[in-house]
């Protein structure tokens, strides 16, 4: 079934036109749906499934932006989104799939909601970073407004993910908060985007700094998602 993911990544890479991007997303959604049907749950465990889910989230969350009036005809942005989604689909490929049932502690809708919302947020932070890059290269305040919107919706998803994670943690472990490296970096990411959203109040003189922060935020996101799992010992990682 991995050929579906390979096909999707290849289509994303060639997505200079919207129909190709949509085809890549459809193929990836089909791949995840097949995985989900096979497992009887959302595929959210292990590096392979989470990276594929992240890639698909990027495709899904980029959709409203590639169809926005401000970005109509901007194939460079379309390709950037496709390239980002392809990158994570390709990174997912070498990892083995975990085909086990969910451990009892993860077998709850709160867990699935928590993880899915976090990936939607990560994806929107990725889209915001691409928009920040586009603004720095080409200018145009419309791009910065779109970046703000992507980050604001991402921040909302991320906040809801933290709330659902807290509720899950309370029912699973007896506490809505654990001091683990993953939770510390989750807080850092949330504070980072809180700072980003507040910076908007400072006005146009800070536009460049605002765009740069949107880019840096995605690196903080990647460290929270991947860096903590790779570099730190935490029971709270994939």
């Amino acid at each position, binding site marked *: 079934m991995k050929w579906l993911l390979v096909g999707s990544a290849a289509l994303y890479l060639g997505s200079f036109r919207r129909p190709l991007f949509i085809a890549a997303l459809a193929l990836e959604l089909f791949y995840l749906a097949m995985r989900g049907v096979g497992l009887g749950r959302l595929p959210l465990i292990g590096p392979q499934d989470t990276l594929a889910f992240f890639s698909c989230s990027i495709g899904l969350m980029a959709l409203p932006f590639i169809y926005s009036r401000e970005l109509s005809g901007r194939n460079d942005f379309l390709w950037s989104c496709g390239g980002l989604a392809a990158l994570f689909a390709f990174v997912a490929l070498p990892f083995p799939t975990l085909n086990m049932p969910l451990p*009892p502690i993860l077998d709850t809708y709160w867990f699935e909601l928590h993880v899915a919302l976090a990936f939607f947020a990560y994806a929107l932070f990725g889209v915001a970073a691409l928009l920040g890059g586009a603004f720095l290269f080409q200018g145009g305040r419309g791009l910065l407004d779109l970046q703000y919107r992507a980050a604001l919706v991402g921040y909302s998803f991320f906040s809801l993910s933290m709330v659902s994670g807290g509720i899950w943690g309370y029912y699973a472990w007896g*506490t*809505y*908060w654990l001091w683990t490296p993953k939770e510390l970096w989750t807080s850092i990411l949330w504070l980072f985007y809180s700072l980003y959203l507040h910076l908007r109040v400072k006005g146009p003189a800070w536009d460049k700094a605002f765009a740069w922060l949107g880019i840096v935020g995605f690196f903080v996101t990647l460290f929270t998602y991947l860096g903590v799992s790779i570099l730190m010992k935490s029971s709270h990682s994939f």
Partner: protein
Amino acid sequence: MLKKIYTAFTSLNLGLWLLTGVMLALAAGSFSSGASESSGLNDFPLFYWLQNAPLSFSWWLWICLALIAILCLNALFCSIEALRTKGRSIAPHLMHLGFLLIVLAHLFSAYGGFKQQLQLPEGGSIGFPDGERVRVESITTEAGPMGMMSGYRAELRLESGGLSGIEPNSPMFHKGYGIYLKHVALTPAPLAILEIHKEPGALPALLGALIFTVGNLMLLAKRRGR
């Protein structure tokens, strides 16, 4: 003098610097041995841990707490000032209020939280501060298709005679305490590994999260199409 302090605390720049400071303290802490899961930070209420852990373990958390305390004042004063002078949308202020409630909830848990692990066989019991005992009536497991344990459950008998089942993600709440089934062992005799938790901050944290979410949704609605 008071006016100067008030003006300083309503400054957006102060808020931005404090956010940066908290992030840096948390990032430094995440690499330190104090935040590792073997440091015992999750085994005791936060204030108890802070009083007893060496400063080489806890320094980043002290810095973080000091900065968050000022950040809370900053958020509070900014909201008061904005509502007093501009009277605009209440969405950001609801988000501030939610944030403040969540910090307050952490303080409640940091001061009055409780956690204890117990291993009880069938027939074993948990004693509550008022003398009541809750007995483990039975321990059962389920096996998955490959023979591995896929689920487990314990039945608890209250002194009133009532029976209540606990399993992963489904604890029992009794007299302000949560009884959680962490795991079970079947050999040599069935044994339930239980955790007793008291989390006084849970309800205020949920309330804070709800208020924050309402403010967040209002902000999203306000920014739609802009």
